[in-house]
């Protein structure tokens, strides 16, 4: 025995060395598998990185029309329609309200001061005009240019004098000091541009020449007062003061160069600054004061002393009498005296108090916006797709609409219910606002190079806003497909995918499991059955596009009367999708995954222990009872695992659906199995092949939706499976 051992087996050191070699061989194998696993994980991470990088990130968005402008115009229209008098002249408004005990007016605080005996301004949420926290202030600026300040020292001296005396003079004329921080910021940049470190003391007597001042009337009282002081302090030159409005003032300063200072009641816009620079005028600005917009009532009005923001909204829009604003106030009618449409005052008020967004506007207002901005022809087309109003035609004439509806192919709008508010809102976005993403940045750039992105936008797209875009939003999931990537969504595709997969599963699960039961439990061992089995195994490996051609030939062409729904009278002849329906898609995908389901179900059935069948037969069960009560329940978890795999495959398939003719652009939800369709993978495929970068962003978002759909369907199946397996133990 010992001799045998020593001859044929290693011992001692040799044995240890031999064992070591076996361990090392195992280690090599393990490292290889580890490496493979890591490569797999890295691939997955790279995939996720790519998708996320596309789906989130900064975008430069340019609107053709600013939605805030549309809202403001609507709000102004609403206010003007409710006004008893509107005038650009604050003095006229003040006079009107001074004569009307139940009137209310809106104008600058500086216009109130001269009539303070007959009028009373309302406190807003407890804050008096001019006090800190008063919500409707307008910033007032002085604009000049570096070149002007250098050529004409009297202009710079005047501005410095202005800054030093603004507070003192403002108190006299009813203009309030601006927020000190804002003043300090503009003052620092002004001084910096002129190479000064602090505000120099100015002696007006040292200066002469002409100072030409233009611009907004809001600042006129203050400027006039300071100019008087400047002259009184010994200025030897002349000051020409003109009220031309802020807009004209910028043009005079930069383009015509007929002014040295523009007193503006709004900041310079980016294009205006651009124009200035082109004309060799580097703009300079200081914030000098605040204009408090005052809501003023007659002094005889005893009840109104304070008002809330909501009350203010009602007061200037819908309220018919004072009781509508505050329940405790009398039911006297409200007479409103407000500035005219051209006035910046009304704009400021609308922006500060009426806080509606475009999406919240009533449908009628949105329809009016559409009517004001789109052509009549386009409007007619939209109206024939779906009406805007049940009773009234907005764009079309009655005759032509009746003619269109009486025709053979009556447009859908003749019968469909009218558009919803949300629908019209989307049309406004689509045709009026036209948000246009001019460029997008990846998530990585957005996170780590934020400053560069901001600089690039400022430089290349001065009109655009920088937005952090999450392309995957609730709207994206619930909106239908659209031509513009900003408003396009995946609802159509998502519903298409759900319908298709439902039909696929309904078709292939029962047939697949049935076939597996037949093959495993009933079919005898014969040549024919072996051929069938081999065929099924091979079919599982056939490229999916072949199934697409099969589906095209059989379901789309041959069985067109069934798959189009014509055989069931579901669709009228002539308006069908001609067999390119959800039903065809579902059946084609069903054929595609049938072999996978059969093979997996066979495996699962084969794995059911034979002893269970014996036990069942031993109790006098028939074959069917045995299969139904024992084989199938025990095989079900395995069958469901196979079905999950098959379903995952079907939901991601693109090629066969392209072949059988999925719609490339469809905005209508699928209504049933006989509808035209598109699915998520098809949508993704189409978006990725578009040239615009934004389509790749939404393709990324759609991929996430597809993954989420896949995971949730799989999770459902896994939960089902676990429930079945739990019942079996």
């Amino acid at each position, binding site marked *: 025995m010992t001799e045998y051992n020593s001859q044929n087996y290693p011992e001692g050191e040799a044995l240890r060395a031999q064992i070591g070699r076996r361990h090392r061989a195992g280690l090599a194998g393990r490292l290889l598998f580890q490496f493979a696993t890591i490569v797999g994980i890295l691939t997955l991470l790279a995939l996720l990185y790519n998708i996320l990088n596309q789906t989130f990130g900064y975008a430069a968005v340019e609107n053709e029309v600013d939605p805030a402008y549309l809202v403001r115009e609507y709000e102004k229209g609403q206010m003007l329609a409710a006004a008893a008098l509107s005038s650009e002249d604050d003095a006229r408004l003040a006079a009107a309200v001074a004569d009307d005990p139940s009137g209310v007016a809106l104008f600058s605080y500086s216009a109130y001061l001269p009539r303070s005996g007959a009028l009373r301004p309302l406190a807003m949420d407890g804050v008096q005009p001019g006090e800190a926290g008063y919500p409707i202030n307008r910033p007032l600026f002085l604009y000049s240019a570096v070149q002007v300040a250098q050529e004409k020292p009297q202009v710079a001296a005047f501005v410095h004098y202005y800054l030093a005396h603004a507070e003192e003079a403002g108190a006299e004329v009813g203009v309030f000091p601006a927020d000190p921080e804002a003043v300090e910021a503009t003052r620092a940049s002004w001084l910096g541009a002129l190479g000064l470190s602090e505000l120099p003391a100015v002696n007006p007597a040292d200066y002469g020449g002409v100072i030409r001042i233009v611009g907004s009337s809001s600042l006129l009282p203050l400027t006039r007062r300071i100019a008087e002081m400047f002259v009184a302090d010994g200025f030897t030159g002349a000051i020409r003061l003109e009220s031309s409005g802020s807009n004209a003032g910028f043009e005079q300063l930069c383009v015509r160069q007929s002014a040295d200072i523009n007193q503006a009641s709004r900041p310079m816009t980016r294009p205006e600054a651009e124009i200035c620079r082109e004309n060799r005028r580097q703009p300079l600005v200081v914030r000098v004061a605040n204009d408090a917009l005052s809501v003023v009532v007659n002094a005889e009005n005893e009840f109104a002393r304070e008002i809330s923001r909501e009350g203010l909204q009602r007061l200037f829009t819908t309220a018919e009498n004072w009781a509508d604003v505050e329940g405790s106030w009398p039911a006297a009618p409200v007479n409103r005296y407000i500035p005219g449409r051209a006035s910046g005052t009304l704009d400021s008020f609308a922006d500060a108090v009426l806080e509606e967004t475009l999406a919240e506007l009533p449908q009628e207002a949105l329809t009016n916006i559409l009517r004001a901005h789109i052509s009549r022809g386009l409007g007619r087309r939209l109206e024939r797709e779906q009406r805007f109003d049940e009773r009234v035609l907005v764009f079309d004439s009655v005759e032509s609409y009746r003619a269109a509806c009486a025709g053979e192919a009556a447009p859908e709008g003749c019968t469909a219910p009218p558009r919803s508010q949300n629908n019209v809102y989307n049309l406004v976005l689509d045709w009026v606002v036209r948000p246009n993403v001019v460029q997008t940045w990846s998530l990585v750039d957005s996170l780590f190079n934020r400053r560069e992105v901001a600089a690039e936008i400022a430089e290349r797209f001065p009109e655009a806003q920088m937005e952090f875009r999450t392309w995957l939003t609730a709207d994206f999931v619930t909106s239908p497909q659209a031509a513009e990537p900003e408003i396009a969504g995946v609802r159509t595709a998502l519903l298409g995918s759900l319908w298709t997969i439902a039909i696929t599963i309904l078709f292939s699960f029962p047939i697949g499991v049935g076939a597996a039961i037949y093959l495993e439990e009933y079919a005898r*061992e014969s040549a024919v059955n072996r051929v069938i089995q081999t065929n099924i195994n091979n079919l599982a490996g056939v490229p999916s596009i072949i199934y697409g051609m099969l589906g095209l030939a059989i379901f789309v062409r041959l069985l067109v009367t069934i798959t189009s729904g014509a055989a069931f009278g579901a669709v009228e002849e002539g308006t069908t999708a001609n067999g390119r329906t959800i039903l065809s898609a579902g059946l084609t995908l069903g054929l595609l995954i049938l072999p996978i389901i059969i093979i997996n179900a066979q495996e699962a059935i084969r794995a059911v222990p034979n*002893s269970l069948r*014996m*036990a069942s037969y*031993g*109790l*006098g069960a028939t074959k069917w009872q045995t299969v139904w009560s024992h084989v199938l*329940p025990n095989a079900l978890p395995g069958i469901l695992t196979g079905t999950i795999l098959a379903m995952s495959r079907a939901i991601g398939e693109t090629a066969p659906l392209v072949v059988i003719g999925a719609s490339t652009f469809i905005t209508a939800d699928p209504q049933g199995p006989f509808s035209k369709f598109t699915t998520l993978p098809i949508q993704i495929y189409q978006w990725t092949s578009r040239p615009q970068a934004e389509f790749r962003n939404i393709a990324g978002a759609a991929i996430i939706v597809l993954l989420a759909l896949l995971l949730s369907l799989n999770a459902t199946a896994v939960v089902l499976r676990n429930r079945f397996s739990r019942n079996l*133990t």
Partner: protein
Amino acid sequence: MIHIRDQERVSSVTAAGQAIALEAQNLQIFYGPFQAVKNVNLAFQRNRITALIGPSGCGKSTVLRCFNRMNDLIPTARVEGAVLYRGKNIYDEDVDPVEVRRQIGMVFQKPNPFPKSIYENVAWGARINGYKGNMDELVESSLRQAALWGEVKDKLDQSGLSLSGGQQQRLCIARTIAIRPEIILMDEPASALDPIATLRIEELIQTLKADYTIVIVTHNMQQAARASDFTAFFSVDENRTGYLVEYGPTRNLFTNPENELTEQYITGRFG
């Protein structure tokens, strides 16, 4: 309690007046071209326990499975000869194997309860066979008969698989007697169990004898000697075909075997 059927159903009666429950006449069993068993002639007496013993591969299990046509489930199996039950050959064309199995139940070597609740394990067979009485009572009486009631009465809704091996086997017996067969075939019912569980099964078989005719295949000669009334000894010939060597009352066969092979086997000299 359902008692055994009356005399007129009895297929045949021996000269001694003993009722015969089941009789194999010239039984031959083939698997494809291979003959597994040849020329078996056996008659099982009612309310008696008959043990089938023999060395491995002698076909005793095959013979047992012939008695309720379980061999039908093996595609290549073929049976010649006759198995008479109530005077009719169960292999006749017009006999439905489902009906045969309804009357001749089977307990398998390895406990194979359904992966269902204990209650459902017992009730399922009764339900599919159209039992119309009170199911709760049937489940209880069957479990009592199988000496399992006391151990499971508080957990009838638990899975049958949660029981121990011996309990599972008794559950399988309860399941079988729930459909009230006339004959119970047992294929080495205790071979997968420990000695204590084995003993309990043997005791159970003894009590069941009052109501059922039992045919039991066993490898364990002590078990055959202890538990059976009659013993049939099988052996294999040079072609590996099994055949019946000797059949008689257990006491005679073990104390005074007629055949030399039997004596060698029971004294442990081969097998």
